[in-house]
């Protein structure tokens, strides 16, 4: 008797679940998995949308291996990720630690620091950045006050990428809020005990805050790396869509856009997209493996 009841309830759940999941499932198949499979197929073709895809085997892979502009775009993107992400997280952590629990004005400071995260991805802020770091922009106006003639930050290939990295660091507010939430989880008594034992602020940070926060640092690291590999808008607007000067801001996604939607070289663009997925997967996997050695789990 009990058994039939359970199976009846179970069946009802199944049917309800199909209904509730229907939009999501259609999206998964039509918007995500279907296109993923198709882009994998297109990776082995030459396709311009004007004629049917033409199977070319590993030609696109060979192109990936020999395409100098692509290699350059990988260098630019890696620099952006490997410099921008740690820098942004370091600032986020530092500010979160300073914004200690219960301090007066916390909500105000938090809002001010967080606001750029919401605006930073917009075209409008990229426009602002283009002015600020232009040769006659705000930064050089300020530098002129102290008698320094600054370079044209975004027109000089040596500094253009740095100004975009700085824009990324400017949006440290989102990881900062995650750090703040994590800091709140650390029991106050750990600090009290350490202080009684004579530990200074630096030691408390190294011996308590860092290990206790390491899962959150790891979490932020994963999210920011995945997000940063996909950065597009800022480089596009600041360089006027060209990735210049001299390809110094040619992010991987920008090259992908140019190849796929500028030149309608969609087979190659698909191969590039899968390379990006592969790179992100490797980074994430390495991160997970490395995390065993530095992420602390309370048992």
């Amino acid at each position, binding site marked *: 008797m009990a058994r039939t009841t359970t199976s009846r309830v179970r069946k009802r*759940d199944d049917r*309800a*679940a*199909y209904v*509730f*999941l*229907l*939009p*999501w499932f259609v*999206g*998964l198949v039509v*918007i*995500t998995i*279907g*296109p*993923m499979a*198709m*882009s994998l197929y297109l990776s082995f073709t030459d396709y311009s*949308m004007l004629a049917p895809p033409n199977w070319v085997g590993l030609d696109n892979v060979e192109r990936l291996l020999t395409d100098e502009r692509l290699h350059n775009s990988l260098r630019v993107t890696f620099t952006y990720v490997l410099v921008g992400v740690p820098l942004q997280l370091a600032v986020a952590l530092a*500010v979160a630690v300073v914004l200690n629990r219960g*301090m007066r*004005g916390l909500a105000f*400071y938090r*809002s*001010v*620091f*967080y*606001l*750029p995260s*919401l*605006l930073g*991805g917009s*075209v*409008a802020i990229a*426009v*602002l950045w*283009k*002015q600020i770091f232009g040769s006659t922009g705000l930064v050089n*106006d*300020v530098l002129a006050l102290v008698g320094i003639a600054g370079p044209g930050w975004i027109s000089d290939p040596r500094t253009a990428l740095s100004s975009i990295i700085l824009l990324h660091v400017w949006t440290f507010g*989102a990881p900062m*809020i*995650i750090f*703040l*939430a994590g800091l709140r989880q650390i029991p106050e008594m750990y600090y009290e005990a350490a202080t009684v034992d004579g530990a200074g602020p630096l030691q408390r940070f190294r011996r308590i805050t860092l290990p206790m926060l390491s899962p959150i640092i790891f*979490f932020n690291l994963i999210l920011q790396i995945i997000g940063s590999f*996909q950065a*597009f*808008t800022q480089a*596009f607007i600041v360089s*006027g869509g060209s990735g210049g000067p001299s390809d110094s801001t040619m992010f991987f996604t920008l090259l992908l*856009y140019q190849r*796929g939607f500028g030149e309608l070289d*969609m087979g190659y*663009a698909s191969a*590039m*997209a899968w390379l*990006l*997925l592969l790179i992100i997967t490797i980074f*994430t996997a390495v991160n997970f493996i490395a995390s065993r050695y530095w992420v602390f789990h309370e048992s």
Partner: protein
Amino acid sequence: MRASSLVRHAVLIVACLIMIYPLLWMVVSSFRPDDLIFRQPGLWLTSLDTVNYREGWSALTRPFSVYLANSAVVALGAIIGNLVSCSMAAYAFARLEFRGRKALFGIMLLTIMLPFHVVVVPQYILFSQFGWVNTFWPLIVPKLLATDSFFVFLMVQFIRGIPRELDEAARIDGAGHPRIFLAIILPLMTPALATTAIFTFIWSWNDFFTALIYLTAPDMFTVPVALRAFVDSTGSTSWGSLFAMSIVTLAPVFLAFLLGQRFLVKGIATTGIK
């Protein structure tokens, strides 16, 4: 102790100023004539000139109000889509027992990590076959199909925090899943819905890449692509009106931030989304 707290506040205030100085300066500069924007790093204004706003508003083929309206339509569609589709999926994952739940939930989590670029080429081919280029559908339909998995995850987390006794009681009273979902879970999860709505608004409003690909006719431009067209057409000659229109496009995001800050902070803290 008191001195150290004073130092801390001083450091924080300076840091805040550095952070928002570019924004304040952009607002002030938008009220300056073009020739004064250069060599004027300060924040003082001699006169409040709205010429930049008037010029910027009509600088492109259509008045800026058209682009604002387009963006509003897209954002509204995206918000409704995400609220309906993500909450339904989240209810299933959080409350229903069904075959394959674990596997599907895992797949859902994986799609959070999936870069949009991997699917963009075939999606473009598909949507262009539907005749959807230069329509708002490519920006709205994916939201109706719960492809923003972050929000599904956020809502699952939230629903798991709602006591199951409430569902059980309703079930004993004879309520089916649609009733439980609509009458009990949805009203209790309004904070999660608010977080979703605000984030969806901001992301949709700022979304440049998708709009760049699908919206090429000036009539259909949303504000990010309109602003980009404006930059391209003027180069760096009229910063004043560029700034003015940038501020017009940022204002709704800022407003959403002011109104929904509480939900935003909570949303990021629980799931780590931007």
